[in-house]
């Protein structure tokens, strides 16, 4: 519309301004403005904007997937850390000199002396003793179960974390020696560790 004007003499629409050839089209210069016959430039601008929108959509999509994967990975890592922590505490308990089976100074692996365990349980009932063992066992509950031949349970250490939301349990089979009868019973060390995320 802006590019044409109606001739007063002939009544025919003529291009306004100076007409110059640019490639295959006649470009009408009106003032400083280039005026095309079609809306091609507008379409091309829309295309560019659409491409940018799609590109940013893909980036947002990829970021969401990556965030979800990272979140799952962090949860798995936390679970693995708690598991390793529980296992470390269980191994420390099974190898502690206060509980181990020993004969003439030689320590037997994977074995707990039931007489030592009973005494240890009495000691850790006191707050001072629990504090001194906190470095070894942290926030955990350690129970020695005897499964065969008789069922028996001894609470070795109990230091629960109040309002703990992550609790992990580990069960380790262990021999329970009775040095008075010279017998080895089948037992299990149950360790619960507590953590807050």
């Amino acid at each position: 519309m802006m590019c044409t004007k109606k001739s007063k003499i002939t009544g025919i629409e003529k291009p306004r301004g100076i007409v110059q050839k640019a490639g295959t089209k006649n470009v009408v210069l009106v003032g400083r403005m280039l005026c095309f016959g079609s809306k091609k430039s507008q379409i091309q601008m829309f295309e560019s904007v659409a491409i940018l929108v799609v590109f940013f959509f893909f980036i947002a999509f990829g970021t969401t997937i990556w965030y979800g994967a990272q979140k799952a990975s962090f949860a798995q890592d936390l679970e693995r850390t708690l598991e390793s922590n529980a296992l470390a505490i269980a191994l420390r308990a099974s190898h502690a000199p206060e509980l181990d089976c020993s004969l003439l100074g030689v320590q037997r692996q994977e074995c707990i002396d039931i007489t030592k365990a009973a005494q240890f349980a009495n000691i850790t009932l006191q707050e001072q003793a629990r504090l001194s063992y906190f470095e070894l066992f942290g926030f955990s509950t350690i129970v020695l179960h005897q499964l065969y031949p008789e069922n028996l349970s001894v609470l070795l250490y109990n230091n629960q974390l109040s309002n703990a939301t992550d609790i992990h349990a580990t069960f380790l089979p262990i021999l329970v020696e009775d040095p008075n009868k010279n017998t080895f019973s089948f037992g299990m060390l149950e360790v619960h560790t507590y953590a807050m995320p």
Partner: protein
Amino acid sequence: MQCRNKHSKTQGKGQMEIMGLAIIIILVVLALLFTLHFVRQESQERSIPDSLMANMFVSTYLDTTVPDCSNVRIKDLLKDCGQSNSMVCPSGKTACQQAEGVTKRITSSYEKILHRHFNLIIQGPQNLQAMSIRVACSGERESSKPFIVPTIGGTGITVRFEICEK
């Protein structure tokens, strides 16, 4: 001439746009494959506590003494059962019977606390294999190393423990 040039230019642009779309799709597929690769890698890692638990079960089981049989170890009961089955416990049971009874008691008590399925596999002479505890594992399983109880004649007894996935 002008029409042919116009058509070839449009065709060229269309091809470029399709190539661009194809590149984007390839990039998205590569990103997905990359993510899947890392996720699968994590799930294939072994569970150290389970493998340790399995090994400790077998060593504890074999060294457990049986009060009903003069405090003989289960290992020795299995050995006698696999060889001659000549041992008779004060309770009147043979080594095989005593070993079977003790194995069932231990495994049932263990399962009640653990709340997971497991297999105790005893390989050797026929009468020993019947003592194995086998349960079908739905997923993956973690196995102990094979514990070998040597017997006379060279044919050892192999004891293995498998714990099923949580």
